[in-house]
Structure formats: structure tokens, C-alpha cells
């Protein structure tokens, strides 16, 4: 199961939760490092990023109380609950008239169940680094659908073919895996010696990409905004340790202007491998 299906399952669950309980006005999930996971269809990405930013200081200082397990904000017109599920934070915004017990029954039972279920189906962490299928040497070859059908038809008509006879149909060249897509938060990149065509991404992400492509050095990435704008640019690892492991992409102003985005917004990044 790849990340898109994973996200789709969660997104559908969040939408359904809102349908079942209309007093829930917004739901979304994010990772502790600020990396966004997924939200319901009515919650804008920008709002989610702003919430994560707002609580950054709280999460940073939460060591003093033994890390955050739950946050409840009670406002005069509604309430926000942020609960920790493993390394994920699940946010629920409810109206004032909401039955909190009912909301809690739905969210605290349903969401962990779905997460457990997804984990059982595919025991991979729920994160934006997509879970790519393991590529075994023999599995690198792919048979086009037509070929498979042709083989089946032949099988029906004639005797069972020997496996060796299929060999000529197999393409010997290994296929490169689908480029993984990571959601990253934009951070400014400035300075006199900063090239305007290069973004900086977490070294861990770059290493994962390189590992995926059998050590091939990733020198270019495609950055895509949620408005559909995209650009290709060079990529280098983040130098500043304070941005490491936070799901950020440091971007020069020129690229931000080209993509019509600014600091704090979310973009998709994927490696370009030729």
C-alpha cells in the first residue's frame, strides 16, 4: 500500500467522522516534527500549517511535563482537542454545542482503530515519505498487461508453457521505482553566496531517495505547490541543524516568487532521476 492510498484511507475516515458528527468542524493529523499528514476536505492546508506553527513552542518545551499527550483548548464558541497517537497528533475542532463524550467516542476509538488497521495491512510508519514496494532483483522486470493476457490465452489453447519460454518477453533492464513525494514546509533561504536555483532539503530525505535509487546522487528535485505550480531546481542538504528532521525545505526567494508561495506553506517535493 503506498502513501497515497494510506492518506486516502485516513482522509476518507476524517471526512466520514465529520459527516457522522457535524459538530466536528475540522479534523486533521500531523507529525511531531511538524510534517503534515492529512486533513479533512474542509480544512485548508494553510490553517493546518498555522496550527502546527502555533504549537511548536509548546511541543519544544513539553519535555518539562513528559511530552504532550493531550491538549484541550476551551473557547467561548468551541473547543480544540489535540491528542497524541503514537508519533501522530490528531486535532479535532468542535462547536460549543458538541457532545464531547460522543465526539470522544468517535475520535478516540475510530481513529486509533483505523490507524491500527492500516498498520496491520501494511506495517509501515504513517508518514509523508512514501512506502515504496521492496524491489527484488527478479521483481524488477515487469510484464505489460497485454503480454500477461497473451500468455494466459496461449495457456488455455495449448499446453502449459515452460517458464524458460517466457524469458524472451521479459525486459532485462530494471525499472526505476516511482519517485517518492514528500510534503515539506517552506523555510526561507538567504545569504550572499546562496544560489538562487538551489533548494535545501533534509539530508535524511536525500539519503532515503538515494538509497531508493541504488546510491544514485539526487541533484535535482521537482517542487510542486498545492495550487498546481511546479518547478525543477537543484537540491543540496540542509546545513543548519535547527531545520534538520523538521520536514522543511529551505528555498531562495526567487523560487518562492516563481511558485507564488512563502515561508510556512506546504509543498510537495520529489527527486528527479534520469
Amino acid at each position, binding site marked *: 500500500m503506498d502513501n497515497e492510498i494510506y492518506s486516502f484511507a485516513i482522509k476518507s475516515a476524517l471526512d466520514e467522522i465529520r459527516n457522522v458528527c457535524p459538530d466536528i468542524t475540522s479534523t486533521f493529523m500531523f507529525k511531531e516534527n511538524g510534517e503534515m499528514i492529512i486533513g479533512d476536505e474542509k480544512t485548508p492546508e494553510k490553517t493546518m500549517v498555522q496550527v502546527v506553527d502555533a504549537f511548536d513552542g509548546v511541543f519544544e*518545551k513539553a519535555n518539562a511535563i513528559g511530552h504532550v499527550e493531550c491538549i484541550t483548548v476551551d473557547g467561548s464558541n468551541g473547543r480544540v482537542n489535540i491528542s497524541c497517537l503514537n508519533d501522530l497528533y490528531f486535532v479535532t475542532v468542535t462547536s460549543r454545542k458538541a457532545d464531547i463524550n460522543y465526539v470522544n467516542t468517535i475520535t478516540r476509538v475510530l481513529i486509533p482503530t483505523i490507524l491500527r488497521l492500516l498498520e496491520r495491512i501494511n506495517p509501515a510508519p504513517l508518514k509523508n515519505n512514501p512506502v515504496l514496494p521492496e524491489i527484488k532483483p527478479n521483481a524488477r522486470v515487469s510484464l505489460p498487461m497485454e503480454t500477461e493476457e497473451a500468455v494466459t490465452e496461449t495457456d488455455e489453447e495449448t499446453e502449459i508453457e515452460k517458464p524458460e519460454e517466457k524469458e524472451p518477453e521479459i525486459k532485462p533492464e530494471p525499472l526505476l521505482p516511482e519517485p517518492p513525494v514528500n510534503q515539506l514546509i517552506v523555510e526561507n533561504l538567504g545569504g550572499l553566496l546562496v544560489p538562487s536555483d538551489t533548494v535545501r532539503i533534509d539530508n535524511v530525505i536525500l539519503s532515503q531517495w538515494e538509497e531508493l535509487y541504488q546510491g544514485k546522487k539526487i541533484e535535482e528535485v521537482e517542487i510542486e505547490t498545492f495550487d498546481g505550480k511546479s518547478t525543477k531546481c537543484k537540491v543540496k542538504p540542509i546545513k543548519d541543524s535547527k531545520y534538520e528532521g523538521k520536514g522543511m525545505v529551505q528555498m531562495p526567494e526567487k523560487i518562492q516568487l516563481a511558485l507564488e508561495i512563502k515561508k510556512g506553506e506546504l509543498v510537495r517535493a520529489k527527486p528527479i532521476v534520469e
Partner: protein
Amino acid sequence: MTKKKRSLEDVTALSEPIATEEATPVSDIRTNLEEIKTWDGVIGYILRNTTSAAIDLKDPTKIIDYAILSSSALEASEELCKLFNLGKVKDIIVEGKDTKVLSLTVEENRISIFLEKHADHEKVLKKLL
């Protein structure tokens, strides 16, 4: 002379009730906090307003961390209420593995009470509101 005297009286008449109004809630809050601090599971409190701050914590080494945490929590909750149109922040509870923090604003006073996980924060809230 008469004019000067009158104006002085006016000032006194105006300033007295204001001074009383400001002093009463803060002293009330402090009295309540002192009582709350004796309750089971209460670690301490931080009370701040624009002119003063009172901190009473069992473990003084955690004062800075607790102060930053409670301040960040109140600011974040205000931001959250703006983002989702939730009106005025009534209170925020940050629960950790060992401790929880109840923060609220009463008039100009920002209050944070630090409690052990098992402590009843609802009771604390009732006492302060």
C-alpha cells in the same frame, strides 16, 4: 485655591474605586491559588499580569521551563481560537505523561497551575472562575 482643592478631590474620588477594582481580583486570585496549592496533586502555580508575577513551585529548577511552556500554551490557544473562530480562550490544558498544566486568563491575569496527572483540574477551574 478653591479650584485647586476641588480638582484634587476629583482625582481622589476617581482614583479610589479604580484602585479597589484592580486590587481585589488579584488578591482574590492569589488567596485562591494559595489554597489550591495545598490540594492533593498540585505542584504549583504561576500568576502574571502586566505589572507583577508570582511563582510558587515545589521544584524551583523547573521554573523557566514551566514559565515558557505555560506562556507558549496560552499564546498558541489564542492563535487557535482566532484560526477557528472559537471566540475568547476560556482555558487550556496541556497534559504530559507525568504532569498537566491548566492555563487561563482572568481579566488581565494569566494563571497557570501545574498538577500531577491524577489531580482534578475541573475542581481547580471551578475554584478560579
